[in-house]
């Protein structure tokens, strides 16, 4: 131990000017976000100055100890980068000393697959829909979750997958303009009744949520929603004719209802609550007939961080306080059932997974999506564009 220290000190003295410059440079780069912490730490080790860096206050001593270790969490970008960093990354780093870098690199299935096949896996943990755990896991693209580290009891039955864990919940909900519905919330039947309630409706272009709304609006009982009749859903969507605009990004769904261009929409609950705030209540939403979904964290096969560190991170994601913080920041709900009783009153209304709200919604069938997602998206796109 002593010898190592001496060795480091020696090198620092010899090359102190150079390394000081290097660290200064690296520090500015790091601050600007041009260099990630992994590179920074790597550089410092390369220069033989890890302990010096630890002393410099940029990294804590334990961080320097865990120098080679870092978790790169890839999600869908935007506000979620900062929010996941704050709710999950920072507390985990505080506990373990392992830095978490959030990368908004949009880890769609195709990108994960290409990355794993290339053999250079940059992402350690990726955000994706619940059914991806099994879908990609069965193709051998994901690492298995180590349930000796991750506490299964923190998750509801079925949400602890072999190749991933449910990390947060979200819903597709019916948002509407109160100018058109001053006294009551519309139903999906009203959504498709363009005679009585004229105006544009909007649904997601990429099938999910929209297909379910079409089927429920067409009179399919909730318990018979899956296996879904895609053709019936497309026929219902087409019955809207020119009265439907499909949204392609969360922001565009928000913008259409905000500007009054659309009067109703099947949109993400996260956007619905922001809309209610921004319009002072002119636009609001109902949980009734919503589609309740959960997302997941998966670990691409061959990722760089150690299995121990990533599994510990996954376990930390399920801490109720951290999940509640994410709900506050993003509107995505906790997956740990223990969180429900800890929610402050004002968050209960916006939590898609609160038992009161779940009871009013239909739950997405992950099994059906795992099997039919590819086909459903393609047929849906063909159907609505033809």
């Amino acid at each position, binding site marked *: 131990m002593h010898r190592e220290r001496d060795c480091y000190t020696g090198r620092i003295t010899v090359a102190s000017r150079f390394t000081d410059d290097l660290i200064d440079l690296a520090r500015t780069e790091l601050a600007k976000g041009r260099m990630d912490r992994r590179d920074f730490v790597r550089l410092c080790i390369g220069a033989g100055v890890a302990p010096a860096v630890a002393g410099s206050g940029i990294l804590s001593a334990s961080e320097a100890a865990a120098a080679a270790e870092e978790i790169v969490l890839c999600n869908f970008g935007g506000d979620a980068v900062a929010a996941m960093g704050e709710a999950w990354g920072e507390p985990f780093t505080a506990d373990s000393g392992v830095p978490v870098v959030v990368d908004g690199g949009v880890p769609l299935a*195709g990108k994960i697959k290409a990355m794993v096949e290339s053999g250079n896996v940059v992402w350690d943990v990726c955000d994706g829909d619940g059914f991806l755990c099994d879908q990609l896991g069965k193709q051998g693209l994901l690492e298995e979750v180590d349930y000796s580290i991750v506490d299964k009891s923190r998750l509801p039955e079925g949400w602890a997958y072999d190749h991933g864990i449910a990390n947060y919940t979200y819903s597709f909900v019916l948002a509407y303009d109160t100018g058109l519905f001053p006294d009551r919330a519309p139903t999906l039947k009203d959504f498709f009744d363009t005679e009585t309630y004229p105006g544009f409706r909007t649904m997601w272009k990429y099938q999910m949520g929209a297909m379910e709304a079409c089927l429920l609006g067409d009179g399919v009982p909730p318990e018979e929603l899956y296996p879904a009749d895609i053709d019936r859903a497309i026929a219902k969507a087409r019955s809207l004719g020119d009265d439907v*605009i499909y949204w*392609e990004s969360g922001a565009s769904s928000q913008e259409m209802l905000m*500007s009054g261009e659309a009067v109703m929409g099947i949109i993400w609950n996260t956007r619905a609550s922001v809309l209610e705030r921004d319009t002072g209540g002119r636009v609001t939403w109902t949980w009734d007939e919503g589609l309740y979904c959960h997302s997941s964290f998966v670990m691409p096969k061959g990722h760089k961080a150690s299995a121990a560190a990533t599994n510990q991170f996954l376990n930390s994601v399920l801490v109720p306080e951290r999940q509640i913080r994410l709900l506050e920041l993003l509107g995505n709900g906790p997956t740990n059932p223990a969180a429900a009783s800890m929610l402050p009153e004002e968050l209960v209304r916006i939590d898609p997974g609160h038992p009161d709200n779940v009871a009013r919604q239909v739950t997405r069938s992950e099994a059906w999506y795992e099997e039919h997602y590819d086909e459903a998206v*393609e047929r849906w796109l*063909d159907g609505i564009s033809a």
Partner: protein
Amino acid sequence: MNRPYYFFVLPAVALVALMFLLPLGWLAALSFGLPEGFTLEHYEALAGSSGIRSMLWNTVRLVTITTLVSLVLGYLVAFAMAHLGETQRMLLTLFVLVPFWLSVLARALAWLILLRHNGLVNEALTGAGLIDRPLQLVRNELGVIIGMVHFLIPYAVFPLFAAMMTVDRRLVMAARSVGAVPWRAFIDVYVPVTLPAIFGAGVLVFIFGLGFFVTPAILGGGRVVMLSEYISVSVLQTLRWAQAGALSMVLLVSVIALVWLVARAIGFRRLTGVG
């Protein structure tokens, strides 16, 4: 004798072959079922799928309309630039260049603000009492065509303008001196002389149009799904890489065939400089 010229083309060929075609070859191989074996099923599936057929037809139809409109409007602007005198030429060049720099994203949003139901154009028309109910100008095929034409006009203008500047004015004078009226001189002499540039610009605009992604996605209201977006969905979401590879190969071969046909029709040398 020609050896040094091989070195001229080498860097470009190496760059594209190694960094672009090589990784693309992997996609091409997937489309033939390699490395597991050889099959044409993905190509048969393309031909057999009515969804893909209608998507391809829509793409070609929209891009053709867009190309024709862009060429006509671009020709007009290029002609004005070539024949209206220095000040107008400078101003026109400037204003054709400005939208070039407006990000494709910012443009798409601007068109939405202008053309949507409660947008500026509709409000102006309703305010002037010209229409009772708003026109559907965007979030449909019309919106996509407007956005694409707007993007592509400058790409038509500059090659056409360059060609017009080299048209020998004496040629036209000669035509007129033997009694042709200006309009006839224009049709019989001017247009044929600029024809290679028209084809060249047309091919460029057409190929460019085929790759459009952002504009149809934002201005199409979700109901205009074009080739690029379709491939993107198979690549990123549904993981049908073999299908995406097959579609890309079909596209590549068709476009090369198209360029070859056009080149043959008007002379390869005049189009590309290759003798």
